[in-house]
């Protein structure tokens, strides 16, 4: 041992190198090797996951369909704050439409404005077709072509679309629209769908997660306490759905739940309901809840099971011997020790449920579909990818907030997934 009276020195190896440097050098090759082993996965994840998702999400705030084609009008908007277009504005519009007509991009331009003001796409395409024939004064020429060109909300929409970066899609995703005075206002009630859909998605996900917990808790407990022989058999039954195609499982629920399906036939046969009173269990929320609970159940059972497996039966016995009834033992001793499993299973089920697509699309009908079905609609049918991206980004953000809240309340370290 060195003399403790001397001032603290830098620790050195036997041949005089500082200890820290020696340690870094000694572990460098191991670190490089470890990094090289991870590198393929890192590249794969970056290329197939981070980049496409990042691109997709960036669409939610950027749309260049209008701004890159309507340069002169863009310049006019930049110079003038006025909401009332003058002759110069119409001249710029016509000039831009001429170019767009030549480049066959008038449809794109119209689509962009159509997102905000439905029914305006054709105004752009037909005006572009006639743009070559138009002569000054352009204002009169345009209004003669279609008097709707004077609409202030149209000009407000064009002004906001003239910048590539925009929050319009988020506003649309929150059921807001451009008002006549150019500001955002709540959309008419009959077209407010997204906020309602978000709420429905979250409510249904909470219900499904709760059902999974109710059904999964006893099964997980049974799995953890049965003798190994029976437990592995039960485990196979739990995992069987995992090994079956999602589509097959969903369609078999359709067979069971439909009006002329197995369950209704049984109920009618047993005389519980009349033939004219068959239960509606499909193409509504009931169908979505039943089918999704079944599909997500393993995601609740497995984390619960892995936690319960580690709780020795002696805790319950100790509690009983100390005078607790079986209910008190469960509530005070067993349940608190399964919290990490409940948290893990709950958050897993909830996150999966919030983003579920196929099952609600097949059995959900009109009021059993979720926000992801709307996202898919905008991706595939309406081709408004920016709106789809905005909806998806909001979904992602809300899940992240949930995750953060869980971490603050329970602690993510306590989460056990298996």
């Amino acid at each position: 041992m060195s003399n403790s009276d001397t001032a603290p020195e830098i620790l050195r190896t036997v041949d005089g190198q500082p200890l820290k440097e020696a340690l870094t050098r000694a572990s460098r090759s191991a670190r490089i090797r470890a990094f090289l082993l991870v590198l393929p996965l890192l590249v794969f994840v970056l290329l197939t996951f981070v980049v496409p998702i990042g691109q997709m999400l960036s669409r939610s705030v950027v749309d260049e369909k209008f701004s890159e084609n309507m340069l002169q009008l863009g310049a006019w908007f930049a110079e003038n704050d006025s909401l009332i277009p003058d002759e110069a504005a119409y001249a710029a519009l016509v000039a831009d439409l001429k170019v767009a007509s030549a480049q066959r991009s008038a449809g794109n331009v119209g689509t962009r404005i159509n997102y905000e003001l439905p029914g305006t796409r054709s105004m752009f395409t037909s005006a572009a077709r006639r743009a070559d024939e138009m002569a000054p004064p352009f204002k009169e020429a345009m209004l003669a072509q279609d008097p709707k060109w004077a609409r202030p909300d149209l000009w407000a929409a064009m002004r906001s679309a003239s910048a590539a970066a925009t929050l319009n899609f988020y506003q649309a995703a929150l059921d807001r629209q451009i008002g006549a005075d150019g500001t955002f206002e709540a959309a008419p009630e009959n077209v407010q769908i997204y906020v309602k859909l978000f709420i429905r998605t979250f409510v249904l996900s909470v219900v499904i997660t709760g059902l999974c917990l109710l059904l999964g808790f006893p099964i997980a407990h049974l799995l953890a306490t049965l003798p190994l022989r029976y437990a592995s058999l039960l485990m196979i039954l739990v995992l069987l759905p995992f090994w079956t195609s999602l589509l097959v499982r969903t369609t078999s629920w359709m067979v069971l739940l439909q009006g002329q399906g197995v369950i209704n036939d049984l109920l009618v046969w047993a005389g519980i309901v009349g033939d004219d009173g068959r239960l509606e269990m499909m193409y509504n929320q009931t169908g979505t809840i039943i089918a999704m609970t079944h599909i997500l159940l393993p995601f609740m059972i497995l984390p619960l099971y892995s936690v319960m497996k580690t709780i020795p039966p002696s805790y319950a016995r100790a509690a009983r011997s100390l005078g607790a009834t079986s209910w008190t033992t469960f509530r005070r001793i067993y349940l608190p020790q399964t919290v990490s499993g409940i948290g893990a299973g709950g958050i897993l089920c909830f996150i999966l449920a919030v983003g579920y697509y196929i099952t609600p699309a097949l059995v959900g009908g009109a009021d059993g579909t979720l926000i992801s079905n709307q996202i898919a609609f905008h991706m595939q049918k309406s081709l408004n990818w920016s709106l789809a991206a905005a909806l998806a980004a909001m979904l992602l953000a809300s899940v992240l907030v949930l995750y953060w809240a869980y971490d603050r309340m329970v602690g993510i370290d306590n989460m056990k997934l298996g």
Partner: protein
Amino acid sequence: MVTQPQSDGFVVFDHVQKSYDGETLVVKDLNLSIGKGEFLTMLGPSGSGKTTCLMMLAGFETATHGDILLDGRPINTVPPHKRGIGMVFQNYALFPHMTVGENLAFPLEVRGMGKSERETKVKRALDMVKMYDFINRRPAQLSGGQQQRIALARALVFDPSLVLMDEPLGALDKQLREHMQFEIKHLHESLGITVVYVTHDQSEALTMSDRVAVFNDGRIQQLAPPNELYERPDNAFVAQFIGENNKLEGVIEEISGDKAKVRLATGELIAATPVNVTQKGEKTLVSIRPERIEFKPEMMPEGAYMIDAEVLEFIYMGDLFRTRLRVAGHDDFVIKSRNTQGQTMLRPGEKIKIGWAPADARALQP
């Protein structure tokens, strides 16, 4: 301190049988009466049925047949939480999500005791095991020995008159274990509680108990105070299980009252005390404790029968010398001698004569 069993015992097992599968009996016809204030140990190898007996007493297993009585009242149908029996588990079973104080308050809370009374009792129990300073710790922050004390305090905090302990010291190291043995014994004496203790460690059983019930194969092989168990084992299993033991096989040549002569397989004739052999010509196993064997002629007890032996191995164990000999064709014959001033250290190859008092050689049924 030996408490004699009372005819109307505090805890009574009356013809208790237990089977898990309906095919084999884990506990075969158990009859046992435990007196109030007694420290009774159930000792036996694993699978001998001792833990099952404890679990039946605690109420976690039901007896397949027979009655278990606690203070004169049958408890077969009483659920565990109404039996009022304190229990200490092998892995302590301290609730990990509660502090030490909450763990101790738990049994009082479920009994609906008020807060101030709870605090008094918890403090008293923790003081008893000298752990009051740890009241706000979690079990995971305590060492094994500390957890053991807390488990003990928790089993005692609600003043049970009967406390069950299921191998409570099994996970501790040797030194701590011996220390805790004394502490448990001391608590037992000062509180006057009845303790039923399960262990497979025979030295623990001998050190702590008033009486020991040796279990094997679902039966009590012998129920006796430690000294009697050690010195006068009833059968070959007990002789072998408790302490170290030399066995010599032979045939009864002569038997009269408490004296017998046994002809060994190699022809030697030795004197022995018959225990559960009765007839001439019967096969027997003579058991002799290693420390009761003498090899110095001047120390030989009276009436000792001498027999030839050859030293095979000498082991220095500190306080003891352990010498392995070849005797009558067996080369696992062991003698132990204390490491006293001037004690002889035998060398391998040496030829000696050994002997013992006939009372120490017990002829048992093989």
